[in-house]
Structures are given as C-alpha cells and as structure tokens.
C-alpha cells in the first residue's frame, strides 16, 4: 500500500528534535513532487505548498510535526562508550538493550547497555536508570570515536519496521511522521482545481520538547484562514481506560475541547459520515496536548481542528498503529482541503 510505504520511509528518517533538517533531501525526494514549492523557516519548520490556482483563495494550514524523541550525546567515554541525554519524553523502560544509530560524521551502530541478571546487585531493587546513566556501546576506541562523534551528536532508534497481523504495523518515529505521511497522501488525492484554497503543509519542528515548538511561529508566518493539526493520539491498551484513550481501529479521532473549532468539528464529522470515513471523538477539558493549542493562538487566532491517529506504545521504538486508521486520517485531510466554507456557521 502506498500509504504504508510512505509511513515507513518517513518514519525511518532520523529527525530527533532540533535535527529535523537531517533528512531534508530524502524528504524532498519522497514528497516534494506533489507540491508547488517548499521552504524552511527560521525555526526549522518545513513547508510544502500546493496552490489551488485562484486569486484570493483562503489559506489552509495542515500541521504534522516532523521531529521525534531521541537522545543526544553528552560525553565520550573510554573504550568507545557514550553517555547521552534524553530529548523529549523518552520511555526509560524501553531503552536498555535497544539498537540505536549515532548520527555523527558517519552513521554508527550502537547498543544501549544493560545489566544481565547474573551481575545485578540486590540493592538495585526495581529502580530504573535515568537516560543520563545509560552507556551506549559503539565498539570504537575513544580516539577514533572522537573523530566521528561530538557532544551534541543526535542518537536515534535504529529503524526496524514490522507488519503485524491484519492492518497493524510497528516501528519507530510514527509519532508524528505517520501523520505527516497521511497529510501528504490526503493532499495528493485532491486535484488542484478541487482544493478549497492554497494548502500549506507544515512539517513542524520541536514539538516533542514542549514549550519551544516551531508550530507557533510557523502558523504565525503563514497566517492561514483555518488549520488542521494532526498528531498521534494515545490508543487504548489493556492497562488504560476508554475515557483516556482512543480506539485503535476506531478511525481518525477529532478532539472536542475549548481549543478546537466547534463549527468545523461538527461539519467534518457530518461530512465524514456521509463519505463513510471512520471517525471517533476524543474529549478533553483543557489543551489538546498537541500543536493545536499553539496554532490556535498564533497571531490573531486561527480556527483549528485537532485530528488524531490512534497509536500504542507512543515514544518507543515499537509504536503500533492501524493502517485503516491512517487511511481514515488521509481521507479526512482530503475532505478538509477540498471542502469550501468549512468555517462558515450555517446552523
């Protein structure tokens, strides 16, 4: 499937927060052809524009963040070991004995160290090492490694992709590059003359580190008439409740909360039903926990919807999603960019 391939290709790129530009050429060759122009702004947001060809048409912003969680080299130790610091909300329970790639002058393979039961001390109990206490094993001498890696070199999960049963897939970096793939696919399915306006796809920077996100300045500079923010959403697992999650396989989620635009939500949900696009709602009392909160308040304010792709194991090297949900998200994007008067109150 075309969408599966694109999700896999985009997710495999290393784009640890602050290093979103790493795969710029690959990104351009993967998705550039479907757009009229592309550019990068001062904070690392990457834009792809598809114009409708009409003067004075509205500007539509689609946001999916390009960055992913990861690690960054903090020191080079004897015998080719590296210490690291976390970037974003890395799940500490999943790091040890994992495969990583150190993106120095060359790509270097590394293993995150762990202690076997044979050598574990009883006083360690059930404590978990902080990311800064971990050692990355590179198999290099300190001397040689110092030529290839420096403090600040990013470290990413080694991309390994698996197709699980049915339409479920697993891999790293699905947060949020799977959504970027859905956005690209959705936009590509709408012919230029069918577009409701000029479409700005923003693959935004620095979402995972919170306060310094690229989405706010990005949305400000484009100043769109309205926007859709797409991010992965926490999928239901056996150890969580329905109210704090969305159903994997339940379709694209739309967040109902004070941040998102009530009119657009209602219209989209109704239209999606007509077109048999599977959606579900996700209700929250405050912020969306996504770029929608930043985009909404950019400049003089931007009406926005928040769309979620259900994901399990978020922030691990083995995130799991359902391709049928991804297809729903792509379809919803296509619907969003092709529907005129979305923000107009008709009721």
């Amino acid at each position, binding site marked *: 499937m075309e969408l599966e391939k694109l999700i896999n290709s985009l997710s495999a790129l290393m784009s640890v927060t602050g290093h979103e530009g790493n795969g710029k050429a690959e990104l351009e060759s993967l998705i550039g052809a479907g757009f009229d122009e592309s550019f990068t702004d001062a904070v690392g947001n990457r834009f792809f524009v598809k114009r409708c060809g009409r003067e004075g048409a509205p500007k539509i912003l689609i946001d999916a963040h390009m960055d992913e969680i990861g690690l960054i080299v903090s020191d080079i130790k*004897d*015998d*080719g*070991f590296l210490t690291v610091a976390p970037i974003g*909300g*890395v*799940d*500490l*329970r*999943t*790091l*040890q*004995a*994992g*495969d990583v790639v150190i993106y120095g002058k060359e790509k270097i*393979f590394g*293993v995150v*160290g*762990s*202690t*076997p*039961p*044979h*050598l*574990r001390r009883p006083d360690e109990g*059930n*404590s*978990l090492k902080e990311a800064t206490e971990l*050692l990355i*094993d*590179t*198999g*290099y*001498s300190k001397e*040689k490694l110092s030529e290839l890696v420096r403090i600040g070199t990013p470290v990413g999960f*080694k991309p*390994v992709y*698996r197709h*699980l*049963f*049915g*339409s*479920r*897939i*697993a891999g790293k970096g699905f947060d949020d590059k799977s959504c970027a793939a859905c956005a690209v696919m959705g936009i590509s399915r709408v012919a230029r003359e069918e577009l409701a306006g000029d479409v700005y796809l923003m693959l935004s920077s620095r979402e995972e580190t919170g306060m310094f996100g690229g989405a706010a300045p990005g949305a400000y500079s484009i100043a769109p008439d309205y926007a859709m923010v797409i991010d992965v959403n*926490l999928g239901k*697992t*056996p*150890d*969580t409740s329905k109210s704090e999650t969305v159903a*994997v*396989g339940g379709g694209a989620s739309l967040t109902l909360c004070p941040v998102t635009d009530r009119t657009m939500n209602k219209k989209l949900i109704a239209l999606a039903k007509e077109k048999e696009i599977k959606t579900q709602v996700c209700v929250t009392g405050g912020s969306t926990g996504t770029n929608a909160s930043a985009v909404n308040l950019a400049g003089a304010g931007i009406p926005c919807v928040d769309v979620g792709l259900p994901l*399990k*194991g*978020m*922030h*691990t*090297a*083995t995130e*799991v999603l359902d391709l049928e949900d991804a297809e729903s998200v792509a379809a919803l994007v296509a619907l969003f960019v092709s529907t005129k008067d979305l923000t107009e109150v008709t009721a």
Partner: protein
Amino acid sequence: MTREEKLQLLSELCLEFGPTGSERYVAKVIKEKLGDIEYTVDRLGNIIVHIPGEGAPKLMVSAHMDEVGFIINEITDDGYLKFDTLGGIDPRVMCGKYVTVEGKEGFIPGVIAAKAIHHQNADERKKVTPHKSMYIDIGATSREEAESLTEPGNSATFDSEFVIFGEDGAFIKSKAIDDRIGCAVLLDLLGRLPKNCPFDLYFCFTVREEIGLSGARTVAHAIDPDFCIVLESTAVADLPDVPESRRVAKLGDGCAISLRDNATIYDRDFVNFALEAAKKKGVAAQIKKYVSGGNDAGSIHRSVDGVRALAISVPSRYIHSPANVISTADYLSMSELVLAIIENGKEL
C-alpha cells in the same frame, strides 16, 4: 571454515528460534549442518555426535541450543498475549522490544508492550514494570483473531538483528549468542579434529540449559564421561561505570576460563592445563575473575561418579537480552583454544 563462513554460521544459528523447551527449530538447523556426520538424539532432544577413540578417556564437549525467551500463558479478550519468561530475563530489556512468536502456522511478529509513558504516574516512570504487567501485541484485535494465530504454551524469542559493528567490525551484537556460539564452535571443530585424537569424543548440543541445566544432566548420565568442556558465553561488565573488581572479564582478551561459578567448582588441574595449552599454541585466554552465573557444567560434573570439568566462555556484555555483545576475535579464537586442549590431551 573461513572467517566469513564462521560469521555466517553464527548469524544463522543466533537468528534461529529456540527458547528453552522449543529447541526443535534450532536443532533442525544443527542437524542439517551435521550433514553426513552420524548423530543420535536422546529422549529429551539432546543431539550427540560420537567420535570414537578406542581405549581413550571420554571427553564430553557440550553447548546448549536453547536461548532465553517467553512462553504464552494467556490470550486476553482483546487479543493480547500474556507471557511468562523462559530463563532469567530482566524486565528492563523486555518492554518495547520486538519478539517472534511461535504461531499455529509459522512464526508471527509481535511487540512487548505496556502502557505508554503518557499514562504512567511519576512513580511508575522511575520503576521497572514487571513482566506480568506487560503483554505481547501481535496486531490481533480480539481473542478470536489471536487464537487463530497462536495458543498458550507456544513460545517466543526476541526478534533482533545480527549486527557486526564497531571499529573494523570488532564486535558482534545479536540475540541468543548464549549459547549458539558454543553450537557454532562445535560444528566448526567437527571438521578439524586431529587424526590421532587422544580422546573418545562426544560432542553434545543440549536442551534446556536456561532452566535448571537440565538437558546436559541426562546426556552426561548416558555418556559417563571422564572429562567435560562446556562451551558457553559468560556475562561480563567491562564497562566504564563498573569497578575493575566487578568487570568479570574483558572483551577482546580471549575466551574466559572459569575457576568457579554458582553451579560448579572447576577442576583446577584441568584449568591450569587449558591455560598452558593456550599459551603453547599462542591462543589468547583469560581467567573469569568473578563468581557469577552457572552453566551445564553444574549438572555434568556431578553426574554418575563425577566428571572433571572445564568451562570456556566467550565474554559477553548484556546477555539474556536482545542485544548480547561479544568480540569477533574472541569468537574466532574459541575453536583454537578447544583444539589446543584436545591436541595436548595426552598430557592431561
């Protein structure tokens, strides 16, 4: 075998499926590799190759086929697999890792998972999640779907790539190096034994080491050897954050010879003989400098009326995880060390 062939053999064996009790898959590969060489399989599934040496003392050289893994003990209503461990695996290396699950037809991929970091409270984020709180996600969405794919009692292993890495490919990373490396060395040695071998030799590929050193117990009973050499990988921690006294051994300094571990006190004369033989042949070897772990020697040396035991182990970081790490040179030297001992066997 050339260096490339040896690496290829190790890769093939490591990537094969064979958690404790489900060794039949890796056993099949080993039998294929044995080709025309005669072997017997005992009632537990141990593979035994006898190379007769009339009147000579009996030497049993063994390596275990099994690896640590998981066994499915429940399928949930929503299609997840609950599991128990086969052998000692720290929960710190399980969560978020790929696994290969024994299916009803062939193997199926899965992921060991637990609730996302976003749903953990501050206390949970700092603590180890026990394996009983984890589950394997195979992509099934219902009990019916999952039950059509696999069933309780089936097992699983880590799904992890075999990677030669580091400066000039000095290191190897894989699952199950413990103890497919011993199996690889046995297969290599079979074609390289000296003509006038001073031993009546038994090469044994054993089952169920990781739980109770079980398979080797019955083989040793049947063979009743005079000597045994156990080929293994041993846990070491030659890491910058571990004090010298607890590092056990160092990768790249040759295979480790044990004085004692938690299952065996080794035959001191045999140990000294092995060190001397290594020196004579110019093969690197080191003494394991820490009492930890245990291996099949634990059951072999106490079998029948007692057996003089030696353990030769490739030093390995992070064993019992998806990413065991060893030195390529240590692996390549293991056959040479065993050969040195066999060639000088008359003096033992």
